[in-house]
Each structure stands twice: as structure tokens, then as C-alpha cells.
């Protein structure tokens, strides 16, 4: 691989970075910059589970009566079929499909210290659209509103750091699939090659224009001409190193005969062949189980069966091939599914989800315990415990050896490590990172008999809680629990009692729990919300920093 150097070491790079914004977040100045590690050979494999994997039926809260009685009366995995694997105190078990594959599948990987289970991964104000949530996961940016454009992916921006004077020997990333992913889209270039069949790519590589053509002009025509020319040059260039690696590499483990296994088998062979590609992505679709999800033996079980076989064969293969110390993988899905099953024997788009990380270098632990301990943040969806960007950040900093400055540049901010320690063995604690997301204390599940605030089980005063409080930008969410249908209006007064204006026009609400995104008016200081519910008055203090 050609020696690649970080742009951050060049003054031009610093200047460009210093003025940039990711999303709408201002980046801190240069003082967070610290020296990056020597560049390494570590590899990341991303397994995309498209459609929204049902995390609750993947890592099962099997000692939780609600799971069987209320949430999944028809779709639960029977207790006697699920496989306990972690500390029994956690009350969790694996879906039996996760034992499929070599050496007891993903269960075996956990036992052998090769699997991390991270429960409750998500982000604030989750979007339940496949497209938008997939874009959010790919972009690594949680937008402030639905309108914010997400034009680039986090890995695209990460690999933007390399100046493309000459193409490296191997592509930075390979997506085993047909369509380009936002994940790899950088500001000006795409960091991934699309690959399905190395032989075919090699043949195609011969069919394209392989030379960089100099038009000798600066124009829109030249911009587009050069873009297309470069696509061809990249195919031609990379098809050779990919073919060489493919021919040189081999597999030493058997794989199941299905699509995901074939993709991962190819990845293992390319790694074995010495390809220097840093990121591979593979995918399995069909997780959008709105209807007919099935319990044991259903569609979802089938999908997990394929996933477990593919990942466990891959891990075993890469170990036998002697590369396992430099390969970690993660599973990614745009969202989890709702705890309550729906009326069509399926589950609807939800929020926080389970994520797996695998490889020699991951901590073989369960982070985030049992989803049963995650409250509902609204009437239907689980709160999240870990921001998905924590995982991206750790991959960049620990696994790729990137500076905090670079990861902050890519993600637009810093994030807590998973449980302050991280999921990778070599991650060092870092006191400079912000606090972990706050898991709300109140369970908003209106039907929960254990919910002390549930309007179904308690009669008491309406409840209002603002968070985050204090707020830095004036934006906050007011959680409101109403027990009686009422007209609600919210206005703001400052600490001197001056009216600052109306935050919520009078509107009728039925009993239930609500989240109202609001924004304070005026500058920093203590503000008081005057909440009028019918004839009753409530006051909530909110601090703006």
C-alpha cells in the first residue's frame, strides 16, 4: 500500500478543518488535537442487517414475564428453547438460531471470548423511517430536524483524510453489493468499490478506460468528465489488486451456502490474500418483519440462523488463516423493533437495539444488561442507553488509531465510551469524554402495571419533566403525563417574572404521556415554564447555560 499520510499534518488540512462544520455542530478548536498512532493494518467488517432487526427476539429478556405476557404473547421465543449465555443474573438468553454455525455459532463465539453484546444502542429523537434512519446510521450524524441534509457518510469523511495523489494499491473500502452506500460517500469522492465477483470485476476492469485523461481545462464539463474517468480508472486499478488478493487468498473454514455467508467468505479470502482494504461491508436484508415475523422457525429466526452461520464461519476462518488479531466486525441495523408485537403477527419500527461486535480484540461481555431495564421513552418505544456514534468513535480512535481530533471532525462531537470503558480490549479510559446518554427514570409505557406513573394504574397530579436540564442551546424536551383530557398551554417567564412569550399554543390533549420538543426564548439563565392545564397551573424551572 502506498504510504498515506494524514492531512492533519499539513497546514492546508488544518485550515480546512478549522473552519468546517459537521451537521450543524461547531467543532472545537485545535487544542483537542493530539498525535495519532502509527497507521496500522487493522480491518473493520460491517454486517448490515437491513430492515431493522428485532433485538428483543435476538437477545431475549427471558426471565421477564412482561416479555411473554404483554409484549410478545404470540411472537416470544419459548423460554425452554432460548439459550442462556451470560451471567444468569442478567436474565437474558440467546435466540436458539444464534447457536447455528461452526463451533456453536455466535453462542460459541461468546463462550470463546470473541463476541460483545451491546444492548440499547440508538440515538436521541429517533427517526422511524428506514431511509432516514439508515441515512442517520450511515452518516454518523443525528440531525436536528428531518430537513437537515445528510450528504456524506462517516467512513466517507474518515477516508477523506487521505489526499488522493495516487490511488493506493487497495481500495480503502469494499462494499460487497450492488448499490453505493451513503456510508462511504465522502465530500468529493467515494471511498468504496462495489464488489460482487472479483473475476467479473477483473474482466470489467479491462473493459473500462484505464488511463487518467488530461483535458487541460477547468470547467464543469471537465469536472464531470474527470469524475467518470476516475470511476473507470479506479475500477481498472482496484480490480487488479482485488483479483490478485482473491487468487492469492483462500478459505479454511466451511460456510453455509447462502448470500451472507458467501459475502463473508469472499471478505475472508480477500483479507487472506493480503488486500489492504480497511473496511468491508456485507449485508443481509429482510429484517422488516411487520407481518408474519414468526416465533421459533419464523422469518426472523431464519435470518438470525443465516447471520450466526456466516459470522461464526468467518471468525473461525479468519482465525485459522491467522489474521484474527487484526479483524473486528460489528452488526448494524437502522433501528430495533417495538416491544409490543402488532396485530399482524409482526413488529413495527422501533428504536434502541442490540448490536454485536466480534473478533479477538473485542471484550466478550454483555454491555447494557437486559432490555427489560430500558424504560419506554414514549408510549411505544425503548429509550436508548448508548449512542451509536460511541462505537464509531471507538473504532476510529482505538482500532484505526485516529486522533480524537479526527474522530471529532468526522462525527461532529465527542461521545462517551460504552460503559466508560469501551468494547475493544485495547481501549483506554478517557476522562475527557462527555457523559453517557441519560436513560430516563420514568417508564412511559402507558400499559405497564409496574409503571408507577401509568395513567392506567395511578391517579395523581399531571407530571412535567424537562430534559436536558440545564440545556446548552435552549432546546429541550418536556415530558408530560396527563391523567385527564385537558387544554394545555405553555408560556415562558424569566426569573424576574417577565413574560417571554408562548412556547405552546393552547391545544387539547387526551390522557397519556407526551414529549414536547420546545425551545427557550431569550439568553442564558434560569427560565420558568408556566404550564396551564385546564385551570391548574404548573411551573417547571429550566436552566439555559
Amino acid at each position, binding site marked *: 500500500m502506498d504510504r498515506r499520510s494524514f492531512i492533519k499534518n499539513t497546514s492546508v*488540512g488544518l485550515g*480546512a478543518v478549522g473552519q468546517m462544520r459537521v451537521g450543524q455542530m461547531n467543532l472545537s478548536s485545535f487544542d483537542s488535537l493530539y498525535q495519532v498512532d502509527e497507521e496500522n493494518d487493522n480491518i473493520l467488517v460491517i454486517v448490515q442487517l437491513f430492515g431493522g432487526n428485532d433485538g428483543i427476539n435476538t437477545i431475549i429478556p427471558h426471565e421477564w414475564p412482561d416479555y411473554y405476557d404483554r409484549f410478545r404473547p404470540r411472537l416470544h421465543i419459548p423460554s425452554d428453547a432460548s439459550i442462556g449465555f451470560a451471567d444468569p443474573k442478567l436474565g437474558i438468553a440467546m435466540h436458539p438460531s444464534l447457536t447455528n454455525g461452526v463451533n456453536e455459532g455466535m453462542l460459541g463465539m461468546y463462550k470463546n471470548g470473541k463476541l460483545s453484546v451491546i444492548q440499547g444502542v440508538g440515538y436521541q429523537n429517533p427517526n422511524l423511517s428506514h431511509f432516514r434512519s439508515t441515512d442517520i446510521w450511515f452518516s454518523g450524524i443525528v440531525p436536528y430536524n428531518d430537513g437537515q441534509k445528510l450528504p456524506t457518510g462517516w467512513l466517507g*469523511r474518515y477516508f477523506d483524510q487521505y*489526499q488522493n495523489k495516487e490511488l493506493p494499491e487497495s481500495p480503502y473500502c469494499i462494499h460487497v453489493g450492488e448499490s453505493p452506500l451513503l456510508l462511504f460517500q465522502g465530500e468529493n469522492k467515494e471511498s468504496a468499490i462495489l464488489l460482487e465477483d472479483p473475476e467479473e470485476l477483473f474482466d470489467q476492469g479491462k473493459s473500462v478506460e484505464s488511463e487518467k485523461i488530461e483535458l487541460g481545462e477547468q470547467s464543469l*464539463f471537465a469536472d*464531470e468528465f474527470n469524475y467518470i474517468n476516475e470511476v473507470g480508472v479506479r475500477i481498472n486499478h482496484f480490480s487488479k489488486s482485488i483479483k490478485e488478493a482473491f487468487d492469492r487468498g483462500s478459505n479454511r473454514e466451511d460456510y453455509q451456502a447462502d448470500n451472507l455467508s458467501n459475502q463473508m467468505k469472499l471478505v475472508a479470502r480477500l483479507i487472506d490474500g493480503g488486500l489492504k482494504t480497511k473496511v468491508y461491508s456485507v449485508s443481509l436484508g429482510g429484517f422488516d418483519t411487520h407481518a408474519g415475523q414468526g416465533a421459533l422457525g419464523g422469518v426472523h429466526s431464519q435470518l438470525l440462523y443465516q447471520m450466526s452461520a456466516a459470522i461464526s464461519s468467518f471468525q473461525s476462518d479468519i482465525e485459522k488463516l491467522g489474521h484474527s488479531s487484526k479483524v473486528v466486525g460489528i452488526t448494524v441495523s437502522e433501528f430495533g423493533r417495538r416491544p409490543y408485537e402488532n396485530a399482524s403477527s409482526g413488529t413495527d419500527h422501533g428504536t434502541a437495539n442490540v448490536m454485536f461486535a466480534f473478533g479477538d480484540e473485542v471484550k466478550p461481555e454483555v454491555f447494557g444488561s437486559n432490555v427489560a431495564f430500558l424504560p419506554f421513552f414514549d408510549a411505544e418505544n425503548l429509550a436508548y442507553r448508548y449512542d451509536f456514534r460511541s462505537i464509531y468513535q471507538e473504532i476510529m480512535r482505538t482500532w484505526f488509531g485516529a486522533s480524537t481530533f479526527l474522530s471529532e*471532525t468526522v462525527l461532529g462531537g465527542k461521545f462517551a465510551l460504552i460503559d466508560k470503558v469501551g468494547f475493544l480490549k485495547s481501549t483506554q479510559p478517557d476522562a475527557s469524554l462527555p457523559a453517557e446518554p441519560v436513560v430516563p427514570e420514568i417508564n412511559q409505557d402507558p400499559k405497564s402495571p409496574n409503571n408507577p406513573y401509568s395513567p392506567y394504574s395511578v391517579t395523581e397530579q399531571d407530571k412535567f419533566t424537562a430534559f436536558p436540564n440545564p440545556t446548552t442551546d435552549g432546546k429541550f424536551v418536556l415530558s408530560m403525563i396527563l391523567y385527564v383530557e385537558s387544554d394545555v398551554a405553555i408560556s415562558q417567564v424569566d426569573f424576574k417574572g417577565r413574560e417571554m412569550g408562548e412556547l405552546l399554543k393552547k391545544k387539547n390533549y387526551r390522557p397519556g404521556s407526551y414529549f414536547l420538543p420546545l425551545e427557550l426564548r431569550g439568553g442564558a439563565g434560569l427560565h420558568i415554564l408556566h404550564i396551564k392545564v385546564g385551570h391548574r397551573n404548573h411551573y417547571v424551572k429550566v436552566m439555559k447555560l
Partner: protein
Amino acid sequence: MPVAIKSISRSAFFDKLFSNNNLRAVSSLDEYTSPLNKAEVYHLLKRCCYSIDVSFANSLIGKTAREVVNLLINNATNRTIPAPPFDVNQGFRNPQLLPAEQYQDERNKNLTAHFAQNKQLIEWWIDLMRKDTKSLGEKVTFMWHSHFTTQYEGNEPISAQYMYRQNQLLRRQFLGDFKSFLEQITIDGAMLQYLNGSQNIKDAPNENYARELFELYSVGIGDGHYTEDDIREAAKVLTGWKATHFLEETEIYQPYLRVNQFSTDTKTVFDTEFVVDYEVNQTNVFKNSIQKLMQVTLDKKGEEVSRFIMGKMYRAFVYNNPDTDENETVKELAAYFRSNGFDTKKALIKLLTSQHFFDANNHGISIKSPLESFLNFTAHFDLSNEELRIALKDYGQELLNPPDVSGWKGYRSWVNTKSLPGFIESFTTILNSKSDLYVGEWASKLDNYNDAYGLTESLALLFFGRVPTESRLKKVENALLGGAPYYEWPEIAANKENAGIRVKVALRDMFKMPEFYLI
């Protein structure tokens, strides 16, 4: 922007340093009055038609831009559009009204019909596009389809009868009053189904359509363009409308207002109150809610709407880079659009007859969509409508089925490491399926057939975004000649079969050249 530094090649770097040749078109929208030369006619036709009719193109040389654009518009309005080959008035039984054991069968029957008929409808449209070589009708219709997106294969498949009616609506509105277009698309049956308008009722307002109306169809995304309250309130303004394809209900496919599902609350959108102080009936509600909502949107957000819509028109006809929205020409065009009552016809004429449009620096700068590259090519080397439908689907541009409500990403997404070699392979396969004699005879009808260099120029005019420099064209000529000296070409050309072999070699070379994917 993030760490990316645009890679600059050495020679380009020196070009930048030592010359001032950063070539950009003049921004002026003033009318281009010179008689059009051949390159200009081809430029205009490539942007207005999916395939080029050579003799029609030649007949336009020497006319003014205004004459040609008027002709292309008049030809569009004078076309007769045949009906698609299925019963466009067919209704369906509602499976939910049947006994449980018949539900699945009836539903499957309906879905099978929807899929089969939508395929027929797509092929019907492809056929119209292919035959439309003398007007800009199909390009404009497709522009609106990719703007007012509807996916027949959405969560709940939409019947071809609905999709056909929407297609007719796009043709009926075609060019003219944008406000009435917004009004009509809002109660279009396919749209009511696609964005849940039919489920938008006073007790449970569904915001899906209202959100997209602002975000994707009129105002566009932007800071301060609209608030969540505007969306919520607009959804209530739009409550009550429905269309049905179920035989058990009222007149099928005819959008109507369910009077008792219309919210009579007072709503506030863009600081304007919508008071229901009139008798609630379909006519009054259409006038006082839908028409008023569009009027208010244009009154209060006219600047945003004009920029957004003209940005789309600019990308459809001049340059499909989404970053062009902010350029001076789009701003000027938007101002013209606003001051001319949001008339899309006047705006398009303004754009297509402008000095900016005809500036040589704007020739061949747009990246071809699969639709454009396939129809451009298969106008000469035939593929069946069905094969075309499948090819477009393979390349991610199935008509009536954009990937999501925001439509096709377009621009550079069309040419990537998967699609580029795919295109080369597809076009090579199509070309190889034609006999040498066929290709030779086809070439013999082109201008300058007997001159090797002249023939390559004719090929480039047909398939390239712009005729390249002499050295680039020489490359094609060399492929055509295959080592023979240029003066022997007439001799080779005399035998159509031998000529066909050589032309195939040249074309196969052209498939690899970036110019082939530009328009």
C-alpha cells in the same frame, strides 16, 4: 467541509496557476437570438428529447432558439397519447369486506393485477418516450414524475389505474400554472394513497402528505422555511379527501371530500388563519382550504418555492449537479418565475432560449441517467420496451417506482464502480446482437459516412455530450480505421458489412469514453 481536499492533478494545478481558463457559461438569461448551428440544435434536442431524430435535427439548423422551443412545446401539446393496454377503469373488490378465508386470495389477485398492469404502464410510457423525438413533452412529464414522486411499489402497492391517472395529470398540468398543479396533485388518487392523504381525517390527522408537500413538492428544506406547526396545521387543512379503487365504495378513482372527516377547526399555516365559516361541501373546501393553502404558500413562501422549483427545472434541463441551486442563473430564473405568476411554461421558455443555456460551456455537462443513456442508444440499436423496462430497473431507475419519496438521487449516483462497467457491457451486448450489415447500413445514413473523421463526428454528435477535441476524436477515428489509412475508408465503407464491423469497433471504444455518459 471535512478534511477532504479536492485532488488536483499536476497539470490541472499548473493550468490553474498560469492560465485563466476556468470556463463557466455566462449567467445571463437574455434571449439567445443567433440562428442555431448544428451543435446548438443537438444540445437543445438532447436536453428536450430522449432520442434524436437526425432529419428533424437537421431541419432545425438555422432557426432561432425561440422558434425551435415553441415548436417543441406545440408539438408536445398536439400529440395524441394512446391509452395503455389494460382496462384503465377496472375496479377491485375490497378483500377486507370478504369472509376471512377469501381475504388472502382476493388480496393476492389484486396485487397480481397491480404489478402486472404497472409493468404494462411502464412499458407504455417507455414507448411514448422513445417515440417523442419532436417535442419536450416526455422530458417535462418525467421531470414532474421525479418531483411529485409516487412509488407504485410502496408499502401498499398502488393500482396502475391510479398511476395512469397521475401520469395523465402530469401531462395535463405539463407547463403552466404551478399553483393549480399543486392543488391537483394534492387530491390525485395515487398521491392520496401513497402519502396517506386518504387516512388524513379530522380525528387523526396524518401529516405525511403535508410534510412532503412543503419539504419535497413546494417550499423545500431550509432553515426557517416552515415549522412543525405549519405541517401539523396544513395536515388539518387537507383532511377529509379520499379516492378509492374498491368497487364497494362510491365512484371509483374520483377523488372526493368526506364532509364529516374534514376538520372544521380554525388552522394557522404560515401565520394565516384558515377559518371554516362556510358551508362544508366539496367545492367550498377545495376553494377555501386547498386552493387557499397553495395561494398562501406562494404568497408567503414565494421566494423559497421559486428557488426550489427552478432549481429542479435547471437540474432537469441544464446541469443535474444539485449544488447548482444557488447559482446566479437559478436565482434570476426564480425571480422571473415569481414575477410571472409561477408560470412554469414561461420559465422553461426563458431558460431554454437563454444565452446561458446555449453557452458552449454548458454543452455536455450533465450526467446521463440510465433512462437517458438507454433511450439515446436504443433509438438506433433497438431493444424491446420490456427489455428496456428491465434494464432501467437493474440500473435503479424503474419508472413509477423511485427508491423513496425523495425521488432518484441522480447526478453522479448514476455512474459508479458497479454501473459504469455495467453500462459498457450492456451497450456492447446490444450492439453485438445487431448484424454487421445492419450496423453498416445504419451508419451509411449518417452525415459524412464516406469520410472517416466526418463519420466519427456524426457518431459523437449522436452519443456524446459534446463533440470532443480533435485528439479525442482521432482516437475514435483510429478505432474505426483499425490501422488502415484514412483515405482507404471510402473503399471499406463501400462494403456495408465490412463497414459495420469497423463501426462496431469504434462504438465499443466510445462506450468507454466519459463523453458517452454526458449529455
